[in-house]
């Protein structure tokens, strides 16, 4: 049984289809391991009993035609799941049970997957360390008292600790790629408009995008293929021809042109990260692809732009959590007092900080100087990418400027926390797809990731490059089950 958890999604799916193992066996293995891993605090809401029942039902009445037939999986607690509590990591939604299902999770269940439970995340996906969750911080299985990154920290941790074979996250400024990098896993932020946002608790609507988090690139291709769909219920969903990403996966990248942006060589970047980046460059060269030095001149403005646009949208998106209709409500003498108490008690500090920033940058007299200016810069950042994509097929950068840090290390310094997203944020602003794959370990033995950025809707291309690099890198995560 113990080797079940070592199998990748593609392997598991094949074994279930060949009836070599049952869904119940797989589900039981993951439930057992999850039960023994509470110390990691990855789950906000467990649904193990139901999962086992569903697995049982699957085995009794199997349908092997589907892409995720009988596969158990846990998902980030930002996806609304019908009849199962969905909190977004916040007290204000601490008792919220949706009557509806997000399109992305619906796609998973339609493909035969079975829900294990809901995974911890930063409150409303606002954070880079999973420390802003109302349900407590999450341990990174890589090392004790290390953050797993954020905001999809619970997802990354559960995946790396093998509490789920695959998972999904959301990425607004790096929330899939940064935790993937911190935990030695693969995370894809798809092109904006690729995965429906319907039923995902919104953080920043123009940036949010759901994506797969997996152990390897093949799994990532398969899971992405299942998640992505055109959805009329999301007006920003794009109706393009989805591919069979796994089937079309191809490790030959000969002749591809890969850009290396000079602006990503930031000051005081750890030597190890520079080293890994160079290693990635060398691997690409050896595979017959061409390396081209490029410039993305507005990269420096991406972080400040992001921290205007995202909080602005968030301040408005979170206005609906007012205690009137659902979720947490505090008592007040009148409507205003009820609002104030509910939101003061219901939201954590980071969320409040961003609501205040967002409210400020949208207020009259400041709108032009901040929000409007940020939108213009955002356009320039997108133009930078459009320009370089005339010359290159994809771009290679580090995923993060550092490896996982200690819990509590950056909680009192929001700006240094925000700097974690420096390499990932520009991609969200430009709406492009990017994948983080593990590239190696630093001197402390912590994983580090490389990011491959693609053209819009060109996920296949970056999956291919990632697949090719993955073979060469042959990364091994050294997780020692210290929490058990």
């Amino acid at each position, binding site marked *: 049984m113990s080797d079940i958890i070592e199998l990748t999604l593609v392997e598991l799916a094949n074994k279930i289809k060949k009836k070599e193992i049952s869904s119940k066996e797989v589900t039981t293995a993951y439930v057992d391991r999850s039960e023994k891993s509470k110390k990691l605090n990855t789950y906000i809401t467990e649904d193990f009993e139901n999962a086992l029942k569903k697995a049982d039902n699957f085995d009794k009445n199997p349908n092997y035609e589907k892409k995720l037939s009988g596969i158990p999986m846990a998902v980030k607690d930002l996806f609304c799941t019908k009849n199962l509590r969905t909190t977004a990591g916040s007290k204000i939604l601490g008792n919220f049970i949706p009557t509806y299902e997000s399109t992305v999770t619906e796609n998973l269940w339609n493909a035969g997957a079975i829900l294990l439970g809901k995974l911890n995340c930063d409150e409303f996906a606002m954070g880079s360390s999973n420390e802003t969750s109302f349900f407590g911080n999450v341990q990174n299985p890589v090392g004790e008292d290390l953050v797993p990154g954020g905001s999809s920290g619970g997802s990354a941790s559960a995946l790396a600790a093998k509490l789920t074979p695959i998972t999904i996250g959301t990425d607004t400024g790096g929330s899939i790629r940064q935790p993937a990098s911190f935990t030695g896993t693969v995370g894809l932020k798809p092109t904006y408009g690729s995965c429906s946002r319907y039923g995902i608790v919104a953080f920043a609507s123009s940036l949010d995008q759901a994506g797969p988090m997996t152990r390897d690139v093949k799994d990532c291709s398969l899971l992405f293929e299942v998640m992505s769909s055109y959805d009329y219920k999301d007006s920003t969903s794009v109706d393009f021809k989805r591919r069979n990403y796994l089937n079309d996966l191809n490790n030959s990248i000969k002749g591809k042109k890969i850009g290396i942006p000079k602006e990503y060589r930031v000051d005081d970047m750890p030597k190890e990260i520079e080293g890994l980046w160079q290693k990635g460059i060398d691997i690409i060269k050896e595979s017959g692809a061409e390396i081209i030095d490029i410039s993305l001149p507005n990269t420096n403005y991406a972080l400040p732009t992001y921290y205007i646009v995202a909080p602005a949208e968030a301040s408005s998106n979170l206005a609906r959590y007012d205690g009137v*209709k659902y979720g947490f409500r505090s008592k007040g003498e009148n409507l205003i007092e009820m609002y104030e108490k509910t939101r003061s008690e219901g939201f954590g500090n980071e969320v409040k900080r961003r609501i205040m920033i967002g409210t400020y940058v949208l207020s009259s007299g400041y709108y032009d100087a901040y929000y409007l200016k940020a939108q213009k810069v955002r356009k320039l950042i997108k133009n930078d990418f459009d320009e370089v994509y005339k010359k290159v097929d994809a771009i290679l950068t580090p995923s993060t400027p550092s490896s996982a840090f200690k819990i509590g290390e950056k909680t009192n310094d929001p700006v240094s926390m925000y700097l974690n997203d420096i390499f990932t944020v520009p991609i969200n602003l430009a709406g492009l797809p990017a994948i983080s794959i593990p590239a190696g370990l630093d001197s402390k033995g912590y994983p580090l990731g490389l990011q491959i950025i693609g053209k819009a809707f060109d996920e296949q291309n970056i999956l291919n490059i990632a697949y090719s690099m993955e073979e060469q890198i042959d990364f091994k995560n050294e997780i020692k089950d210290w929490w058990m």
Partner: protein
Amino acid sequence: MAKNQSEYLIKRNNNEYEVIIGLEVHAQVLSESKLFSSSPTKFGAEPNTQVSLVDAAFPGMLPVINEFCIKQAIKTGIGLNAKINKRSIFDRKNYFYADLPQGYQISQYKNPIVGEGSITLDLPTGEKIVGIERLHLEQDAGKSIHDMDPQNTLVDLNRSGVALMEIVSKPDLRSLEEVNAYVKKLRSIMRYLGTCDGNMQEGSLRADVNVSVRKKGQKGFGTRCEIKNVNSIKFMQMAIDYEANRQVDIIEDGGTIDQETRLFDIKKNETRSMRSKEDAHDYRYFPDPDLLPLELSDKFINDLKKNIPELPDEKKKRFIEKFKLSSYEATILVSDIETSKYFEEVIEKSDVKLSTNWITGELFALLNEKNLEISQSPITAKNLSKLINLIKNGTISGKIAKSVFEIMTERDKDPQTIIEEKGLKQQSDPMELEKLIDKVINDNQDKVKEYKSGKEKLFGFFVGQAMKVSSGKANPQLVNEILKKKLK
């Protein structure tokens, strides 16, 4: 703009003040479903029965534009001779209120779907063109109910998300009559188009009224006050009159007007300050990131243009030219789409002049008396047309027709049947009439003498006698002819 229309001036001491009025009309789009959700919009449903997850702003719910509402707004824009903007943007207007589930209203701020246009008012003094500044689409909010529970405010979200068109006029209105004509004309155009039912009792049409005053002859505008959410023409007029006088009093006392938002209290007939400019909400408008900019193709707009029905102004022109109606008659007959439909149905088979007279005369009097809309008329266009034809072909006299009309108001019966049942058919047989007239002459020999000796006024007496003897059924035209012959 025509000048010196109906003068509405406020006089204080030796000063005369002109009143400047602009209206922001909120018209509910006639649509089965809401602006961004598929919930129904029926009026008067049980509270919270027409609410989707989107309308109640559940986590992760997203708005999806209702194409029909977009078409309705464009059609209205075309009806207002306005520029249709091929690119418009939905913005969020952020504020907290219990009946605003999202914490923002989706509206259009800097880039509305419809730009400048105009409306022609038909005033007793002539036509006046009033400018339209813009038309934009927005969501309605829900309703807070404060008096149903001793402790709590209750919220009904049935209206939450219903599509509204905000139609903003230029500050071109100068009198209460013009306000009346403007709202009626706007309502009429939208009813012709089928884009708003204009039902003010049900709140389908409400207005924010902007009022300022200035000394007659002064250029530039005074400081304005906005009176929120007035829901009938009468209340608009009362509110404007109160507000204009209030402003004049302040100026005459040497004060200045504060720009502010005011409420009209119907019971006390006064406006009260709601909030000053300093306290104005900062709505933090920004483009809704859940909705892409709305881009319209020329074809989309042109297809709608092709299907615009004949509107009141064109119809009026046609009625005048084709049917030789007076401008006054035409204005009345086109003022409401139902009236114009009724009229056109009647004249399809009947004489225009007679039909016009009967509709604007007898029928309107009847509807007024019974306080009915023409769509509720007890007499159908078909039967009125028959009645008019019976007059025209001499079957009955106009006088008899009025009695038949009376009977028809009770039951919408075929006039032919009524005439037969009541034996009201006109006596038109010349032989019969001659006998009848001979009798009248025989019975009134003295009058005949007088007549023949030159008292020609007595002719009417003989006609009257003949009609009386025939119980009003004698064909008056024939009676005239025969009498003239016999009395020679």
